[in-house]
């Protein structure tokens, strides 16, 4: 979009750009003080979207043309010459006779066909018709919305099978109630759940189980250590796959990173960071093994009283849910390789699996619709609208220019080490105080518009920074907020400053490790 605007030589008065830039700053500030405003994200973003659209329309920066739909690309045709009517200005157009193969071969030839490029840029479409579409509809990344809506519905219905609680209790029993093994087990489970589900659900499941099992084991004094380590690991686990967190989805899809590529490149860091976080947590909170055989026997007897089958209403549905979850992960991973599915994209896959799971509750699906996080979806919709207007007001172009001034070489195939470090740390600091989603959406748009190649480590700097920054403060990410909520619910005192003090060693370790990882893997090795 921004590329097209630049190519079209669109000009916007600097004052207009400034007004919209102030709006963007206002949105980010309001999101940072969301708690103080007592307003949900969707409401904040919605108000800014409305103001942006009104201003955009008043200042004449938004395109209000009709949209052509239902047309087909004509692959073979004879020469077309004519006048193209563009708002009462006739433009002379000549499209030479050719077919799609000729265009491609001409473009590849050493002496290119002088018409080939213009033909490729102006393909001939027939049979289409114009429809009036509100300007804010194409502004929204519907693919992202579909992924989030479909995934959350799918996970919600799957959790009704009792699968996740079954796994959680089996893991608890396997630990035999030993605190250190329990910490390691819960930490690994947090990472896996964060990767497959979403960070908040993972934190709620593992955090709730932690509370119940530590109370059962009479180890309430270790609750703080467990919850903190789990909270920090939700954001690490959120780095494991392309669909593990929203910044991953936004940045990954913009950069064209596939699910498998994302997993292969991110998993070594997740493994290393998880191990170090557990080690640090066990050391700082003095969580160790049980000393005597008697203690071990008592602890094992206590955790054995958990019944993992309690929440399972139907074993048939349980196995079906487990099979569907496995199939969902495989399908998502192979989306870009599967015929038909690749054209329909990941959003379709998520919605399709959600639809199949909902068949089990076909007469009571409304209970699942009610549980959808409409605030999050509304937030995305409005955020995309705001970013769309910012593009047309050339705010993102201005920020991109600023970034080009700060960074050495944004378009390099292999990112400059200093650039990668600045982007990663900058993203982390920004994410720690406000929402990481607008940051990810904004930076993804800017990097794309500035021509950053897919292979550049800068994309990964944004991904790592946006995810890990949430560990610095309790409001940095939704999962840390859930952890603090659990602490307060169970009378574990925790203030904002207290959290930051405790979080600094973990966040510093994880961010430092991320910088080293990005520099080694994406800059030095150029993977």
């Amino acid at each position, binding site marked *: 979009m921004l590329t097209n605007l630049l190519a079209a030589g669109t000009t916007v008065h600097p004052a207009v750009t400034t007004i919209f830039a102030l709006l963007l700053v206002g949105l980010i500030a309001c999101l940072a003080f969301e*708690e*103080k405003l*007592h307003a949900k994200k969707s409401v904040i973003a919605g108000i800014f979207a409305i103001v942006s659209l009104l201003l955009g329309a008043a200042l004449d920066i938004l395109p209000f043309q009709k949209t052509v739909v239902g047309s087909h690309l004509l692959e073979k045709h004879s020469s077309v010459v004519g006048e193209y009517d563009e708002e009462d200005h006739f433009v002379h157009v000549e499209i030479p006779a050719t077919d799609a193969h000729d265009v491609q071969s001409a473009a590849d030839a050493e002496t290119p066909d002088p018409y080939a490029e213009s033909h490729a840029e102006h393909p001939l479409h027939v049979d289409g018709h114009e429809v009036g579409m509100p300007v804010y509809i194409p502004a929204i990344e519907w693919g992202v919305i579909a992924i989030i809506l479909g995934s959350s519905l799918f996970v919600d219905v799957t959790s009704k099978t009792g699968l996740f*609680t079954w796994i*959680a*209790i089996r893991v608890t029993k396997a630990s035999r109630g030993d605190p250190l093994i329990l910490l390691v087990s819960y930490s690994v489970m947090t990472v896996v759940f964060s990767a497959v589900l979403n960070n*908040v*659900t993972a934190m*709620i*499941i593992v*955090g*709730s*189980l932690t*509370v*119940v*099992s530590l109370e*059962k084991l009479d180890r309430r004094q270790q609750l703080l250590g467990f919850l903190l380590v789990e909270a920090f690991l939700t954001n690490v686990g959120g780095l494991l796959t392309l669909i593990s967190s929203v910044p991953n989805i936004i940045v990954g899809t913009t950069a064209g990173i596939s699910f498998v590529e994302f997993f292969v490149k991110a998993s070594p860091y997740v493994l290393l960071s998880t191990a170090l976080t557990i080690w640090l947590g066990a050391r700082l909170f003095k969580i160790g093994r049980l000393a005597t055989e008697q203690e071990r026997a008592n602890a094992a007897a206590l955790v*054995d*009283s*958990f*019944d*993992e089958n*309690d*929440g399972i209403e139907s074993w048939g549905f349980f196995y079906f849910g487990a099979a569907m979850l496995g199939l969902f992960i495989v399908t998502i991973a192979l989306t870009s390789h599967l015929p038909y599915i690749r054209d329909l994209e990941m959003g379709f896959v998520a919605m399709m699996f959600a639809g199949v799971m909902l068949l089990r509750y076909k007469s009571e699906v409304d209970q699942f619709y009610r549980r959808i996080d409409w605030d999050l979806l509304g937030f995305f919709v409005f955020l995309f609208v705001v970013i769309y207007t910012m593009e047309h007001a050339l705010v993102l172009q201005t920020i991109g220019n600023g970034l080009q001034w700060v960074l050495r070489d944004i378009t390099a195939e292999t990112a400059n080490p200093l650039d990668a470090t600045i982007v990663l740390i900058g993203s982390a600091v920004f994410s720690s105080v406000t929402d990481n989603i607008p940051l990810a959406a904004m930076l993804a748009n800017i990097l794309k518009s500035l021509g950053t190649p897919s292979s550049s480590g800068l994309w990964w700097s944004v991904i790592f920074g946006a995810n890990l920054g949430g560990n610095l403060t*309790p*409001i940095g990410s*939704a999962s840390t*907020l*859930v952890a*603090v*909520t*659990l602490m*307060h*619910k169970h*009378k574990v*005192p925790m*203030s*904002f400053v207290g959290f930051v003090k405790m979080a600094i060693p973990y966040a510093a370790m994880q961010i430092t490790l991320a910088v080293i990882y990005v520099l080694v893997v994406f800059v030095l090795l150029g993977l």
Partner: protein
Amino acid sequence: MARNCARQDRRHPEDLMTQMTGSGLQIRERFVGQRCFKRVSRARRIRSRLGTGAYLRYVHGMTEIDQFESVFKAADKTPFAYESVAIGTVLIVTDVDATRTRELGESAAEFLRVLGTDVRWKFVGGDDFSGVSNLLEEVESHRPDLICTYRNLRIPAVDFPHSLGVYVDVLTQATTTPVLLLPHVDLADSKLRLQRGTQSVMAITDHLTGDQHLVSYAAKLTGQEGNLWLTHVEDEAVFERYMATISKIASIDTDTAREEIRHQLLKEPLDYIRSCREVLAQLEKSIEIQESVTLGHHLTDYRRLVEEHNIDLLVMNTKDEDQLAMHGIAYPLSVELRDLPLLLL
């Protein structure tokens, strides 16, 4: 007031919100660092705007946290652990002469034949004690594992048909020894009844889950290949009273609450009975565990169950710290079912 509020806030910042909302805390207010009274007024304002239910959901993820905690708490079962019950000495206490006391002893031995032949039988007849304290001294001197006696000891049953009598009351409450109440020696078919032994034993309580003492005693006294009925009757009147209250609270769905609470109330004892069955099977006890878990009226339902299943021995708790059991279901049952042997633990 604001000062008091702030002082309280320093100690337990969430308590204020807990008081106001009846649940949880308000994390968001804590982070913005507002003073206590401001938080309270804001919370009130939001609460009045949203309603209590929506206000609670306003706290991020609170309802979902509670849901998963509930799931895990429900999965945390109370397992049955068999208590080894040793009954080596049985003391027969009567208000009749030595001969009739011995006769009762023989009937009791036949009734309790499941205990085997190693039991030492001791006797305290009507001539051996003169008052309550004297009886307690006698009991203390014999150190029995079980006391066998009958209702209306030294008190004419005709005159006190709705009482167990002061001696039995004291034995059940002032000693730690279980008391087996047999049918009165004067009842015509008492001997015949005791000859049947303990082939069908019923343990009754309104809180079966975790009561391994009750179940262990009942299992110990159930005859070979006999039936042990584990019963739990949840008081329907109390349940309905709570439901009537819930039906007046707009933020709680009454039908869902009724269904879910009823389900959970009855599920816990059923889970416990399943655990009892598993443990007793592992111990190779050749008894059949039967279950009856229901919502109803204690006295009516227990009487019905006793009649339906031809129960030989009823086992129930009477000794607790607050001594409430004898004022609850145990006493009326002891009085109502006068010809049925009762083991009062």
